[in-house]
């Protein structure tokens, strides 16, 4: 490491009369903290403090309509576990949404990436066609899809009708509303994952494929024994990101279904919003927020464990 304190004494004689070695050394020691301070300040106010505050508030009964704050210990958690069937429905919806969205969009992204990893005509046109949903706000995506899903004259039902499906009430029925959200999410994220995975593919060294070919591997074997293992860090990273995103997704729910019909599409983030801003129950909303933290923490921890243990490649 360089030592600016010492060097500056020689190089910068106009820095005051006596070369105040100790003062400069002190400055050099403090400087990194000064550089970090602005970021840290904002992180403190909008990340650390609110996390701790949520955990604390989850132990209180605090409804903004009554303004009374009473310490209730673990009561909110008890309510969540034993007295709130809606919480379990929300978790179930969120899990279904994650299961429906993530494997499909990542698999689709992987398929597209593998196909795009070659010299073909119109490559950049394909990339734009697959990636542009990432650039669209979920607000716009929800709008257009609401219309595409409209029964009677919507685009989707028209073409599904052509292949023999009946007119489906997508967003308005408890049976299909969650599936509608899943379809939109797959459409929105597959191209983004494709682009990330494609970058991962292009980072795989050529000679591995040559070696495989010399060994007489089929293209399926090549994929399974070379591409797939070499790509697993990227894939896993994409998966974790997708899980984290799925538990934080709220725009879509708010804009397309408002959690309905009959809570069929209510998911964790939206439920937190309802609890806090429709019922003004800040205590319980904080409890739900703490549950969200635990989910995010466990997902990330599992990721690092997995990364440390399983994905070894040389």
């Amino acid at each position, binding site marked *: 490491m*360089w030592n*600016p304190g010492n060097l500056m004494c020689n*190089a*910068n004689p106009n820095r005051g009369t006596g070369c105040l070695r100790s003062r400069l050394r002190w400055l050099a020691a403090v*400087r*990194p*903290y000064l*550089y*970090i301070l*602005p*970021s*840290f*300040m*904002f*992180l403190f106010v*909008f990340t650390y*403090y*609110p*996390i701790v505050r*949520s955990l604390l508030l989850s132990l209180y009964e605090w409804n903004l309509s009554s303004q009374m704050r009473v310490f209730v210990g673990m009561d909110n958690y008890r309510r969540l576990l034993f007295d709130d069937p809606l919480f379990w429905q929300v978790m179930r919806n969120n899990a279904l949404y994650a299961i429906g969205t993530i494997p499909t969009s990542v698999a689709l992204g992987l398929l*597209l990436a593998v196909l795009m*990893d*070659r010299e*073909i*005509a119109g490559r950049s046109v*394909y990339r*734009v*066609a697959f*990636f*542009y949903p990432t*650039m*669209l*706000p*979920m*607000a*716009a995506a929800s*709008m*257009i899809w609401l*219309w595409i899903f409209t029964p009677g*004259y919507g*685009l989707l039902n*028209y073409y599904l009708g052509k292949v023999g499906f009946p007119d489906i009430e997508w967003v308005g029925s408890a049976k299909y509303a969650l599936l509608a959200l899943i379809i939109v999410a797959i459409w929105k994220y597959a*191209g*983004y994952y494709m*682009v*990330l995975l494609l*970058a991962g593919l292009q980072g795989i060294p*050529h000679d591995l494929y040559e070696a495989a070919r010399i060994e007489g591997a089929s293209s399926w074997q090549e994929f399974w024994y070379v591409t797939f293992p070499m790509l697993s860090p990227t894939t896993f990273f994409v998966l974790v990101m997708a899980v984290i995103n799925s538990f*934080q997704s*709220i*725009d879509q729910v*708010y*804009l397309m279904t408002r959690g309905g019909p009959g809570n069929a599409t209510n998911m964790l983030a939206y439920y*937190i919003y309802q609890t806090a801003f429709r019922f003004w129950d*800040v205590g319980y*909303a904080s409890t739900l*927020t703490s549950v*969200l933290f635990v989910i*995010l923490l466990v997902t*990330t921890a599992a990721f690092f464990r997995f990364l440390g243990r399983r994905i070894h490649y040389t």
Partner: protein
Amino acid sequence: MRIGLQPKRTNILVHLILLPAAFAIAAPFFWILTTAFKDRTEVFSAIPRWLPGHLVLSNFAEAWAMVPFGAYYWNTVVVCFGLLAVQLVTVTLAAYAFARMKFRGNDTLFLMFLMQLMIAPQSIFVPNYLTISSLGLLDTRLAIMAPYFASAFGVFLMRQAFKSMPSELEEAALIDGCSGLQFLWRIAVPLARPSMLAFSLVSITHHWNEFFWPLLVTDTSRARTLTIGIGLFAQSAEGGAEWTLLMAATLIAVGPLIVLFLLFQRHFINSFVQSGLKG
């Protein structure tokens, strides 16, 4: 499987899969585009019309008259670029410290920074709303920006850039009497420009498109942004089921970003790849 090694025949097969996929994914945007130029009655035709019978331009004027887009545009631009300006300062300073300086607790502090990647500001909206409210910032543009002033993702990205700089550069600069912030500003920042661009594009896209947090902390067109504009328009009585107007409004809101994306698609896509994360 690799570039240049496959026979022509497989390429045709590849197109056979890619082409329908591209059409399916592009269709919704094409649908926005054509509907915005359609006559109101065409929307309800039993057979979908992929092209408008004749070009109706009045949808845009009508949508513009119904939604205060002027204010929304201004707010969105101020939020995106104001936020970016602050982020570039906080991110550059912190990233530089983490990349090039040794100090006690740097690993712990860095881990604490990365925590924001896991628990993003939008998932702690309840306590953040309380904070914004008690600071008296509700219904201001500052409220929309404040939780993002620090960006762990940006710090992470810029740290990589600063790390890859040769240390001889620093020593040489020191000998020439260029030190500390001067070095950072004159030499390190220009060298890290590609990463800065990547971060900027991702940040602008993210905040141009953000919906829920801005909706939560704003009440009037004083601070509201474009995405809230279209979201609320869709749920209003005049906007609901008026698909031609809605699609025109959507185009007005997403237009600039989409045009920029089409012009500089390589830059945008590479930025998102480099980041791998959302801003």
